[in-house]
């Protein structure tokens, strides 16, 4: 095709058009799919989309619309609809491909692209779209199809079908509580202002009005804003535990009771300002700490990995049905790159299955007719049919999830520092309060009651309760800037106690996905490259596909004769040239002497005519920085253990790395990994174990370890159930982050000391009967603000020291 314009990238999606552009409107596109999206956008007047960013469009067309057939199942589509009335329905989808402002722009223009869509709204951080549509005009399926066609295919998971409550609602409540507390704090302080200045100018009449107003405003704060604290205190007393919320609640109620007494007896203006301020600061701390990572799911199970639907054989062809309806005895059709959802046997002649998720082994397995296939295997190459032997929830992989480690939440057994301190704290405060009460009682009963209340009020552990939220909130913030997202702030405390780290190899220490190829051997002429590519193209073996991708040959040759022997290699004859691709044995059996001169794990030899030309090497490369991190971690005295689902390598960077571990295990199956973690935990019960792994096959081990961190190339899409997700490119910061979590605990101790000092001063004054509402009004916010500034400031300074900012 000859054209004056030399454009190599597609106008819509920006991908290389491989020298064969499709022209439309004077612009080059890579395929007709992009052209039709372009046409739709320009017709709808949305062509300014292309002026927004360099490469706005996403290319991911699912040409096969029958993929969404299962959405026609009324039960399935009903489960996806979040809300519905006579006029409209609301669906919401998670779309991993939302990545820039123009995505938001385009997706919010859906109503002008399709009749029947009423409104669409994107939540960028959650990568979520909410679509309101007229269900009398269009179906859920057509909405999904439109999205997929635009290049934004929604990721629908089985767990979506189980209707969950709108996760945004609890946040609204926290904001409302904070708003109310802030409103009350501001107003009550205003009314207390004359008191602060010691002004006696105003009359008793005004004072009582102000005090009554303060009391009136404070009641909703106690009932609504503070509800989490007194409810939690009540529950912990009922279960015979004393958490930090207990002394806090005692303080709050003492404050309220004393203020109510002063109000009734007209003896003072009470502690309403301190009370509302305290709740306000506590709620800010809560909001600060509760910073969660919306779009990241830490609780994925096997259902997130499986497809939503399968093609089942019926009398006349195949029909897509939801996975839950798959029965034993069904015959299913699975295509290239699709997961096999249940244990089954192969009906087709042969197939190639990649068990990477299940075993961690990266090379695919070839199977033949009637062989058993396990759920979780990914089909490579030609489509195949399978006979279902077990239902989805009874399959091998799913059974792993029934292991007992998945049934307990690790954090329920975890005792945090605050939980340890609070019983002592509560009893000591109560003892001091009553000692003070009895001391004064002999002389002045009135004063004794005041002292009792004052001690309880001033000892209220507000600064203490703020220490952990603000420290851990800042640490979580630093971590997230460095690509580590933790499930809860408690994990930071756990991380600081880690003594043993277990690393998985594949995908964690080494790069996952497409292994890079390297050619070792003599220089190849263009013609030879074309012939090798043509020979490799005739095979569906992943290694052949990798070679085809690597060579990028555009010329098409067809072999005159082709022989492929499974597990050995390919022989292709082009005229008078013979091309051999395959193992050492394959070349030897065809009269070419090939010797193992490379020593790397996976390789494919190439021979042309009677000569060995060289070999393609599939290298396992270590992730950038992982070797340095390992050596730093080893230096800091941690015990390091390596696990691998692969066989032991003879040489190369992986071997060197594994030699530096204290212990290494090869050929590990998922249960082996789990058992190794359990064994380490049994040997040293008081030392915590961190597991760093990825993928489905590590899920059990991640769960069994005290802290499980999943390494992921894309934190939003693919990681098993875990306590934290670390972006793969940030693995080199792991040692610094472990140090920071250690530092964080020290910061908490230091800020505990500060708040204890405040408490000692306050309690001393209270016992002596010197504590006035004015002093309380100064002391309490001051201690809170000191702790707040100290903790966030210290964490920031330490993060700089650890080079994490």
């Amino acid at each position, binding site marked *: 095709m000859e054209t004056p314009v030399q454009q190599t990238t597609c106008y819509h999606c920006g991908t290389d058009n491989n020298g064969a552009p499709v022209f439309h409107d004077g612009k080059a596109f890579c395929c007709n799919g992009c052209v039709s999206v372009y046409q739709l956008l320009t017709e*709808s*007047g*949305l*062509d*300014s989309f292309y002026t927004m960013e360099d490469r706005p469009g996403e290319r991911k067309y699912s040409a096969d619309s029958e993929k969404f057939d299962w959405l026609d199942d009324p039960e399935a589509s009903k489960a996806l609809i979040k809300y519905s009335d006579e006029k409209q329905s609301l669906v919401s989808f998670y779309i991993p491909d939302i990545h820039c*402002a123009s995505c*938001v*722009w385009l997706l*919010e223009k859906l*109503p*002008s692209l399709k*009749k029947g869509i*009423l*409104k669409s709204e*994107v*939540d*960028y*951080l*959650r990568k979520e779209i909410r679509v*309101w549509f007229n269900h009398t005009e269009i179906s859920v399926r057509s909405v999904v199809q439109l999205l997929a066609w635009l290049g934004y295919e929604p990721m629908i998971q089985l767990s979506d079908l189980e209707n969950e409550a709108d996760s*945004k609602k609890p*946040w*609204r409540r926290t*904001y*409302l509580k904070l*708003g*109310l507390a802030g*409103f009350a704090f*501001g*107003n009550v302080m*205003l*009314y207390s202002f004359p008191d602060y200045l010691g002004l006696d*100018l*105003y*009359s008793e009449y*005004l004072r009582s*009005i*102000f005090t009554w*107003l303060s009391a009136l405003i404070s009641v909703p704060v106690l009932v609504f804003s503070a509800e989490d604290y007194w409810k939690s205190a009540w529950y912990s007393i009922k279960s015979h535990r004393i958490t930090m919320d207990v002394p806090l609640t005692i303080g709050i109620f003492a404050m309220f009771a004393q203020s109510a007494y002063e109000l009734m007896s007209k003896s003072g203006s009470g502690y309403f300002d301190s009370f509302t301020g305290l709740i306000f600061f506590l709620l800010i701390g809560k909001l600060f700490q509760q910073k969660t990572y919306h779009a990241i799911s830490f609780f994925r199970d096997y259902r997130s990995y499986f497809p939503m639907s399968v093609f089942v054989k019926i009398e006349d062809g195949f029909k897509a049905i939801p996975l839950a309806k798959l029965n034993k005895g069904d015959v299913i059709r699975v295509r290239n790159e699709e997961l096999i959802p249940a244990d089954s046997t192969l009906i087709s002649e042969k197939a190639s299955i990649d068990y990477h998720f299940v075993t961690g082994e990266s090379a695919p397995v070839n199977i033949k007719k009637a062989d058993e296939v396990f759920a979780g295997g990914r089909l490579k190459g030609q489509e195949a049919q399978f006979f279902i032997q077990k239902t989805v929830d009874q399959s091998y992989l799913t059974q792993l999830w029934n292991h007992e480690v998945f049934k307990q939440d690790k954090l329920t057994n975890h005792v945090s520092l605050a939980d340890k301190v609070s019983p002592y704290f509560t009893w000591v405060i109560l003892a001091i309060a009553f000692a003070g009460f009895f001391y004064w009682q002999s002389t002045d009963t009135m004063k004794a009651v005041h002292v009792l209340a004052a001690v309880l009020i001033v000892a209220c552990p507000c600064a203490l309760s703020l220490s952990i939220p603000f420290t851990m909130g800042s640490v979580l913030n630093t971590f997230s800037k460095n690509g580590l997202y933790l499930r809860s702030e408690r994990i930071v405390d756990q991380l600081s106690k880690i003594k043993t780290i277990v690393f998985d190899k594949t995908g964690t220490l080494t790069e996952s996905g497409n292994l890079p190829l390297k050619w070792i051997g003599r220089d190849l002429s263009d013609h030879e490259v074309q012939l090798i590519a043509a020979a490799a193209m005739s095979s569906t073996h992943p290694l052949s596909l990798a070679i085809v991708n690597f060579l990028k040959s555009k010329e098409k040759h067809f072999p005159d004769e082709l022989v492929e022997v499974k597990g050995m290699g390919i022989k292709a004859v082009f005229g008078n040239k013979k091309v051999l691709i395959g193992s050492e044995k394959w070349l030897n059996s065809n009269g070419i002497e090939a010797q193992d001169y490379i020593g790397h794990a996976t390789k494919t030899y190439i021979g042309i005519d009677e000569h060995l030309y060289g070999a393609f090497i599939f290298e396992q490369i270590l992730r950038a920085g992982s070797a340095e991190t390992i050596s730093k971690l080893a230096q800091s005295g941690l015990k390091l253990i390596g696990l691998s689902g692969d066989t032991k390598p003879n040489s190369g960077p992986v071997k060197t790395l594994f030699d530096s571990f204290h212990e290494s295990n090869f050929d590990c199956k998922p249960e082996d990994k789990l058992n190794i973690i359990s064994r380490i935990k049994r040997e040293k019960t008081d030392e915590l174990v961190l597991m760093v792994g990825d993928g489905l096959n590590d899920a059990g081990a991640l769960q069994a370890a005290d802290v499980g961190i999943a390494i992921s190339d894309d934190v939003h899409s693919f990681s098993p159930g875990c306590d934290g997700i670390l972006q793969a490119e940030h693995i080199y910061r792991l040692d610094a982050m472990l140090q920071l979590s250690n530092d964080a605990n020290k910061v908490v101790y230091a800020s505990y000391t500060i708040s204890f000092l405040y408490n000692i001063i306050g309690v001393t004054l209270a016992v002596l009967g010197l504590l006035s509402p004015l002093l309380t009004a100064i002391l309490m916010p001051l201690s809170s603000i000191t702790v707040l500034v100290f903790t966030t400031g210290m964490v920031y300074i330490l993060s700089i020291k650890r080079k994490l900012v």
Partner: protein
Amino acid sequence: MEIIVVLVGFSITIAIGFLAAFSWAVKSGQYDDTYTPSMRMLFSDTSKTTNNNNHNHKKGKDQE
């Protein structure tokens, strides 16, 4: 000094007004997503006003 009672009455009315406005804002979902609107406000609808008047027929429906 009694005028203060009137002023306090005013001030608390205004403050309650703002509290009500805040609670309405939270309940109508304005705090659910505090990031995307910052992107949305920068979209210029130039093409829509110049060459796309015939495609605005659903604009009224856009408002929920």
